[in-house]
């Protein structure tokens, strides 16, 4: 069994190979490229299963302590910097999720991207993307994690801006790259602090209890080192996982092809941030009141805030994007309240159903575009939900799968999201200890619960607008379900969205209660000894409340929107009042705020500086200097002609020419001369040694 673990380094290799082969040789053939990419990820998936199997078979010890393979990479003085691989329960869980979701997305994309002129390139990019994510998952240290993190950043830039003919796509790519870069810098700073304090970046070594306590006791700038480092690392996660206030790139990332959105939102990019926080959780938690609180606060803000924006958006993908932001907020709440398992459980389930929802929306858009071709209407936006309606009859498979994903997201028993979201909220409630208004946990719980209601509402709205009711445009009237390669991945994901929740039903539930994931992946930070990893029993009351809220919101959403007519005003306006709705529709004006507070002043400053340069100060000075200089030049020209040219330049030139002529004879091109010099030098060295010992 142990030998199976040694396959781990191979897991990321195959997508990389696929990338290299596609880029170098296979890019002429679309079919071959797609086949290579799918084969690459499928191979990785198979190897991942072997590794997961080994982890399963390895029992509790392996799942907690993990297997690791340090590879000496950079000798730094007396220590060696290792760049290694590690597998434990959490990694194994991620290894289950990433390759499956990715390969389904790949298969989906092989149909979705058909007809694109850069088809092969797309598969090269996504292969590299998956390579980055898989490396990140199996890395045993922060540096390797950071490297793959950056690879993913690059890929996200390339993929979001994949249709770079569109100005908006180009800008979105840039925005994603630059926004996440803020987080990356923070993360890197955190890594530097961490390395300077501990001399290692390997997770296991950082989480030795002694090291942790040393970190907690040391101070940087008057702050406990662990808190500062955790906050910096969390900064990285905020960028990558699109937490408030660095969330602005994520909705714009919808400009990329839909499979890319699915990748970014489910399997790879945003999971990476949550993964990072989960991985580093003991460091966050070692000082009781510190970094973790902020994780929870940011998470709570993001969860509520993302959800509320979601209800006022009309673009089908944008709704999902804000939903992702909000769900990521839930994960952060879970992690921030110390509920390691709750966070990662939601991460895993969310990956599946969010990938499903995105692929489903892609399927809908595809169908709408098909309809647009059919009726020859190229002005109506195929992504606008107001233009859809009644698609359930035309796209049954998509509808079923989408419904599964929606129910999972809303949190209806027994879909996956119910268990995972409920666990987070239960955690928060437990930590808050009831209606305790002074506790962060309570507010987080409140934000989560309200967010859950809003989530249900906008998902209901979406279902009502897209699938139910009557077609509102010609596009939706002629929409046609796409082919097998697109629908079957949806069904598979739907299946997972249905069953995945049973992986961790709390133990006090009769018959199906097992807490399996808790034993498998939830104990990896046990040895650090700073986290309370006890599994919570199911709080029946809370679960009932959550289900009730979810159902109310969902059904309410459907009821409000299923009868929506074309051109009719959004009923939400009446419900919320126009100002609030406008605020939500414009995403709380965060982008505008950034524009006004950061970007505009910078441009203004640049203008001012330019004015200063051109009109007021610099140019006049320059002109003055220029005129004076011209006069001086005339004077000095004479001087030049007489003194410099005659004596200086030509003289120097002649001197160096003469010197060069003489010196070039030292380079004779004859090895024997050089050898003679070597002999002479050896002789003098020996002479110095023999006769000049005091020298």
């Amino acid at each position, binding site marked *: 069994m142990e030998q199976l673990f040694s396959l781990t380094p191979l897991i990321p290799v195959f997508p990389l190979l696929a990338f290299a082969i596609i880029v170098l040789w296979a890019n002429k053939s679309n079919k071959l490229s797609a086949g290579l990419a799918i084969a690459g990820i499928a191979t990785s998936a198979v190897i991942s299963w072997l590794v997961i199997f080994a982890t399963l078979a390895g029992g509790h010890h392996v799942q907690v302590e993990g297997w690791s393979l340090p590879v000496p990479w950079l000798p730094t003085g007396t220590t060696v910097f290792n760049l290694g691989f590690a597998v434990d329960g959490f990694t194994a869980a991620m290894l289950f999720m990433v390759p499956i979701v990715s390969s389904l997305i790949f298969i989906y994309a092989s149909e979705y991207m058909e007809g694109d002129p850069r088809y092969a390139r797309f598969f090269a990019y996504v292969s590299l993307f998956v390579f980055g994510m898989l490396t990140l998952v199996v890395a045993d240290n922060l540096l390797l994690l950071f490297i793959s993190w950056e690879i993913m950043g690059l890929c996200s830039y390339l993929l979001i801006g994949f249709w770079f003919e569109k100005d908006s796509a180009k800008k979105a790519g840039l925005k994603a790259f630059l926004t996440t870069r803020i987080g990356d810098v923070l993360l890197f700073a955190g890594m530097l602090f961490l390395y300077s304090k501990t001399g290692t970046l390997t997770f296991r070594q950082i989480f030795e209890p002694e090291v942790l306590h040393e970190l907690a006791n040391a101070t940087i700038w008057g702050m406990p080192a662990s808190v500062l480092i955790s906050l910096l690392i969390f900064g990285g996660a905020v960028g990558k996982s699109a937490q408030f206030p660095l969330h602005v790139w994520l909705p714009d990332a919808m400009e990329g092809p839909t499979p890319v959105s699915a990748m970014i939102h489910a399997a790879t990019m945003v999971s990476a941030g949550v993964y990072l926080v989960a991985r580093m959780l003991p460091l966050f938690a070692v000082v009781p009141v510190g970094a973790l609180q902020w994780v929870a606060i940011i998470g709570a803000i993001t969860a509520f805030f993302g959800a509320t924006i979601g209800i006022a958006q009309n673009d089908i993908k944008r709704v999902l994007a804000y939903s992702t932001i909000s769900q990521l907020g839930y994960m952060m709440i879970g992690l921030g309240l110390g509920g390691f398992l709750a966070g990662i459980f939601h991460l895993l389930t969310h990956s599946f159903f969010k990938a499903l929802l995105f692929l489903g929306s892609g399927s809908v858009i595809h169908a709408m575009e098909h309809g647009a071709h059919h009726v020859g209407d190229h002005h109506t936006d195929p992504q606008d939900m107001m233009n859809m309606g009644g698609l359930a009859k035309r796209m049954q498979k998509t509808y079923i799968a989408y419904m599964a994903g929606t129910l999972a997201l809303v949190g209806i028993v027994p879909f996956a999201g119910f268990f995972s979201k409920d666990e987070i909220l239960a955690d928060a409630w437990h930590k808050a200890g009831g209606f305790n208004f002074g506790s962060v946990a309570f507010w987080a719980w409140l934000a989560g619960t309200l967010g859950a209601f809003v989530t249900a509402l906008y998902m209901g709205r979406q279902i009502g607008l897209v699938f139910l009711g009557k077609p509102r445009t010609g596009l939706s009237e002629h929409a046609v379900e796409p082919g097998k390669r697109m629908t079957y991945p949806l069904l598979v994901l739907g299946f997972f969205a249905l069953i995945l929740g049973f992986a961790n039903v709390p133990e006090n539930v009769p018959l199906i209660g097992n807490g399996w994931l808790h034993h498998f992946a939830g104990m990896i930070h046990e040895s650090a000894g700073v986290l309370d990893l006890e599994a919570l029993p199911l709080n029946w009351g809370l679960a009932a409340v959550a289900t009730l809220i979810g159902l109310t919101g969902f059904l309410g959403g459907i009821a409000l929107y299923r009868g929506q007519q074309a051109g009719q005003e959004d009923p939400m306006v009446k419900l919320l009042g126009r100002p609030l709705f406008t605020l939500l529709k414009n995403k709380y004006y965060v982008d505008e705020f950034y524009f006004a507070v950061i970007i505009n002043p910078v441009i203004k400053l640049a203008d001012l500086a330019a004015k200063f340069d051109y009109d007021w100060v610099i140019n006049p000075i320059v002109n003055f200097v220029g005129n004076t200089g011209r006069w001086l030049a005339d004077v000095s020209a004479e001087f030049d002609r007489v003194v410099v040219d005659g004596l200086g330049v030509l003289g120097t030139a002649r001197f160096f020419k003469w010197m060069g002529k003489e010196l070039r004879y030292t380079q004779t091109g004859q090895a024997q001369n050089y050898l003679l010099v070597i*002999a002479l030098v050896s002789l003098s060295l020996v002479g110095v040694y023999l006769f000049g010992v005091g020298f």
Partner: protein
Amino acid sequence: MTAIPLSWWVSVATALFVIGLYATLTRKNAIAVLIGLELMLNSANINFVAFNRYTTPNQVGGQIFAVFVIAIAAAEAAVALAIIIATYRRSATVDVEDIDSMKF
């Protein structure tokens, strides 16, 4: 056990080395230069084997390195002579002073 002191071997090796060096330094003909190089390699071999024999008589590390040196010398001679013949064919000379198109 043996009647020959180590210093004799070292002296002979040094003398052979210097002779080889002198040949390498002064000869015009590329083949003669190669001969000088072979002499230097041989002097190294004397040292390898002699020190092996005198300092660690029951191991053969020095002899093994001498074998490696001989093998490398064989490879070197083959390649060097091939180069010399190719040069000769190209420029009708084997005078190392004339083969200096790499200078300046």
